[in-house]
């Protein structure tokens, strides 16, 4: 327990931890000390001088952002001298800041605007000419307007310290100092846009959002990113049913302000012109639109006939759809269609993982654990590419708590910059690499092991045995891809009890019906059965949909409610942000089909299905309020033995700029992919 000191702020006696920063102590006690450059996640700058406060017995005003509190300190944050200083600083700041608030993207949510409103300096004594520089575009998503920049260096720190990229720096000197991109006139970076959102003013603006709307004209819908398994909260700004931006400036969710390029910008697939907006029937002339009722009845008839005839079904579920949808689909297959042939593209060996963890209820690491644990071991994955948020957590842990990072990978990874040990191995040699760190790991206090698809089957059991042998608390993250792989697994979209795997279904020459929900299994594989009736639910006419007899236009994750489970097993809620005409959610489609077939599979409202999940799925009896209020509820690992499953497991090998088949339909991702740059050494494409 840290030593406590007593101090006095604005006449109030306050207790605080010795050495805590005055600005934080004040804020924790409801006393706002204004600041631009101070940001609790990043290094101190003391550059903006907005946080000046008066401390008795010190001759000059002191900056609250770097002054540690001490016993007996008497502080005034609202005295006349302080107010005058603040006003003076704002007045200085406004001398070169253009007053183009009416057309500035930040207008209405600008920290400078707020401060001038609160502390004055609205009327100007400045009659000189302002320094002007033209706006620049640094990347498809990042624009920079130098005169608006107040040089708080938040963007530089977010890029350098937060992202570990270091693509932003400071050029020139004095009043013509400006933020500069790493390639002279453009950026070569993660394109994450963190710099834009952390900018207190409108100096950095986003290529997709700029000049689209005013902030107060938007609804803000907090939902979960649909691109990778990390499950970042993204707050979608919606204007008249159109998503115009994504960010997480309210810092809700597991990811705080973090988002990668996909979470921040790649919502644009929603509006892609190729979105399916009507059910379609394959005819001699190709796919032709039909009505929903016709499509549903055609499918129900075919499904019903096949059930009656004892025909063979194959169901391929999705790792993008919600838990409720996955749950309902699994139930539909087993109870409604009487088939065990249900599967999805599995990207991590969760079956072996849970089996190996049997009897170890505390061994699933949460995303928060990655930030708090003393040591992290990354095995066989380029996290910065494939799990940007997990990678961010590890960097933050290193930055704030000096975490010990170990990386056992086949190539250089960003974690090398933090690692106390970087072990390079041939693919397949990961376990040996891990073993080489045994002595160091044994000396750690606790550990989280994060591993990719290279560790599966026997190797995975050995890895857990290795963890057991260290004699310290060890938790694990079994990496999977896509936004709800974990959910698909947990909800039983699996060929259990002798069902056919995805590959087996595709290879079965006697397959009667192939039902594909939000997946693209025929992208790189052929369907063996010539007679199979193929039904596909998707957003786009994918390779698989092109072969379908009937295609149903599905709603995307940004258009529906429900829950998803991230790579760490945390359940979070989706909230519908937009609506695309003609589409239905997969859950609604299942419900309509069940109804048409006369099946009683229960009510198909997301909340009702989730209740059933909570009652029946192991580990999902999570507290409702947490989920309902937008929190992340940890699930428990399955704790008995888990039977092995047929079929293969392979990572999607997405990069920062790809997202399975979806990225094809994101203009933003395609635009930044054109210049993935040296940073990704050809891996970008």
């Amino acid at each position, binding site marked *: 327990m840290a030593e406590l000191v007593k101090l006095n702020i604005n006449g109030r006696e306050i207790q605080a931890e010795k050495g805590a920063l005055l600005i934080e102590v004040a804020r924790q006690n409801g006393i706002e000390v204004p600041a631009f450059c101070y940001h609790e996640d990043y290094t101190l700058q003391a550059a903006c001088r907005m946080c000046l406060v008066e401390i008795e017995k010190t001759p000059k005003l002191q900056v609250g952002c*770097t002054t540690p509190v001490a016993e007996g300190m008497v502080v005034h944050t609202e005295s006349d001298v302080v107010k005058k200083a603040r006003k003076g600083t704002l007045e200085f700041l406004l001398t070169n800041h253009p007053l183009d608030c009416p057309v500035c993207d930040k207008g209405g949510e600008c920290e400078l605007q707020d401060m001038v409103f609160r502390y004055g300096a609205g009327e100007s004594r400045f009659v000189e000419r302002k320094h002007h520089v033209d706006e620049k575009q640094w990347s498809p998503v990042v624009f920079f307007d130098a005169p608006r920049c107040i*040089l708080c260096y938040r963007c530089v720190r977010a890029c350098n310290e937060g992202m570990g990229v270091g693509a932003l720096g400071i050029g020139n000197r004095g009043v013509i100092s400006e933020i500069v991109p790493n390639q002279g006139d453009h950026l070569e970076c993660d394109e994450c846009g963190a710099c834009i959102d952390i900018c207190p003013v409108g100096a950095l603006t986003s290529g997709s959002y700029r000049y689209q709307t005013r902030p107060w004209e938007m609804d803000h819908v907090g939902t979960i990113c649909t691109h990778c398994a990390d499950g970042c909260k993204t707050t979608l700004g919606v204007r008249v049913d159109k998503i115009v931006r994504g960010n997480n400036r309210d810092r809700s969710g597991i990811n705080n302000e973090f988002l990668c390029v996909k979470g921040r910008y790649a919502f644009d697939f929603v509006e892609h012109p190729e979105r399916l907006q009507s059910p379609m029937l394959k005819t001699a002339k190709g796919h032709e639109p039909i009505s929903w009722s016709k499509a549903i009845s055609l499918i129900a008839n075919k499904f019903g006939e096949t059930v009656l005839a004892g025909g063979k079904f194959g169901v391929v579920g999705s790792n993008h759809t919600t838990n409720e949808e996955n749950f309902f689909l699994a139930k539909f297959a087993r109870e409604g269609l009487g088939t065990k042939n249900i599967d999805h593209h599995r990207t991590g060996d969760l079956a072996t993982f849970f089996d190996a963890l049997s009897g170890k209820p505390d061994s699933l690491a949460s995303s928060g654990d990655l930030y708090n644990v003393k040591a992290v071991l990354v095995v066989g994955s380029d996290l910065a590419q494939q799990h940007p948020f997990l990678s961010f957590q590890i960097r933050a842990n290193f930055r704030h708590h000096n975490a010990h990072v170990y990386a056992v990978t086949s190539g250089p990874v960003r974690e090398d910059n933090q690692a106390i040990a970087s072990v390079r191995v041939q693919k397949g040699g990961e376990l040996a690499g891990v073993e080489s760190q045994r002595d160091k790991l044994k000396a750690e206090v606790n550990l989280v092991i994060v591993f990719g698809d290279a560790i599966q089957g026997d190797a995975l059991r050995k890895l857990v045995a290795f963890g057991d042998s260290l004699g310290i608390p060890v938790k694990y993250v079994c990496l999977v891809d896509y936004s709800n792989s974990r959910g698909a697994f947990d909800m039983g979209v699996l060929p259990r009890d002798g069902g056919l795997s995805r590959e087996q279904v595709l290879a079965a020459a006697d397959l009667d019906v192939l039902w594909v929900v939000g997946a693209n299994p025929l992208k790189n594989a052929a369907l063996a059965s010539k007679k199979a009736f193929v039904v596909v639910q998707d957003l786009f006419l994918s390779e698989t949909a092109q072969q379908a007899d009937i295609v149903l236009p599905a709603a995307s994750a940004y258009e529906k409610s429900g829950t998803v489970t991230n790579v760490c097993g945390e359940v979070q809620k989706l909230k519908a942000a937009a609506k695309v005409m003609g589409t239905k959610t997969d859950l609604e489609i299942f419900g309509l089909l069940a109804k048409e077939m006369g099946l009683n599979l229960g009510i198909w409202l997301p909340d009702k299905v989730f209740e059933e999940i909570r009652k029946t799925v192991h580990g999902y009896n999570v507290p409702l309020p947490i989920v309902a209020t937008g929190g992340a509820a940890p699930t428990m690992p399955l704790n008995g033995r888990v039977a092995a499953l047929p079929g293969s497991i392979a990572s999607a090998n997405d990069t920062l700029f790809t997202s399975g088949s979806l990225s094809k339909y994101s203009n933003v991702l395609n635009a930044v992919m054109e210049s993935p740059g040296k940073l990704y050494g050809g891996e970008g494409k």
Partner: protein
Amino acid sequence: MAKQLFNQPSPLETMVLSKRFALEGSETLDVYLKNDGFKAFLKAKEMTPEAIIDEVKASALRGRGGAGFPTGLKWSFVPRTSPKPRVIVVNADESEPGTCKDRLLIEYDPHQMIEGILIAGLAVDAHVGYVYIRGEYRYLIEKMDRAIAEAYSKGYLGNNVAGTGWKFDLYTHSGAGAYECGEETALLDSLEGKRGIPRMKPPFPAVAGAWGLPTLLNNVETFSAIPPIIRDGGAAFAALGTPKNGGTRLVCISGHVNKPGVYELPLGFPMMKAIDEVAGGIPGGRKLKAVVPGGSSCPILTASECDIPMDYDTLAKIGSMLGSGGMVVLDETTDMVRFALRIMRFYQHESCGWCIPCREGTTWLRKILQRFYEGHGRREDISLLGELSKNMLGRTFCALGDAAAMPTISIVEKFTEDFERYLARETVAV
């Protein structure tokens, strides 16, 4: 035939640091050794670190870089027993307008400074030093490099300094044009290969300086004063000056005087005597208008304020500073608006840009002064100049902001009539 110096010495000087300047070959180790060189080091080698520091404290030597911090006290802050190695850094950035003395100390007597550095090394148990020299002084870097090479070759640097078995390495490091790099922490960032942005204090350089190591940083002249102090005793050095203002210092007299030059004068030397007698008075019999007492950062003095002894305490008492020793003399013909503008142009150009009040304040002030000088001043600008300067004062990240504000405040307050005259001129012009 005596060698050609920058300026002829004055008989009124007290030559301690500059006593070898006029000697032929004064920059060589041989001449240095023949003229008291390295006696102090050998003496210090026999002393304890505490005793060395006590001697420096006894000398009442105060830093010659500008801030005037007591040198002995500064040395005592360096954690001698820290497990981290200690580093010595010499501030030879000499960029304060009006200052041109460190140049002479390196050009004419580099070994005196080296010996001072070595003694400091003994005092804080450091074994490596860097001389940070401003980039414009390339010729001086070359001279310093030559002196260092000579010292190495003759065993006065390296693994066996003066045969004592004690080790010390010394290197030069070039700046590249930035006044702010004279500020000690900005200098350290620059030394580390970065932009010269000042650092937050604490930690002070003594605890965590260059590369995070405990660092002793002093001005060229400060180090150069060490050998005489150790050789003849701190008390003797102190006695040359006034209480708490020990010794002599190199005063750079420039501006409107007949014999501008760098002169070594004891602390407490009368300012008027320096102007009239040492520097030969004001040309053309014109009258004195003002004096910048210690570099452009110091509040300016009116003629009537100049009848004072030049020491730190007296200047502090009248609201100015002795600064870096750059004394600029202004005669009655000087246009103070033009002078203030030139000063502000300098600070605006040199502001590192890190903090808002300095970056924007110097720019705004420069623009107002420029407009004023071009004849478009307004009456309210006069008070605005003062107010804006005061809005900078004490609120900037480092002392550059103060350095810009202080002279401006003093000029506007003390020479308001010069500004009024501009207003009148404009009326006529309209």
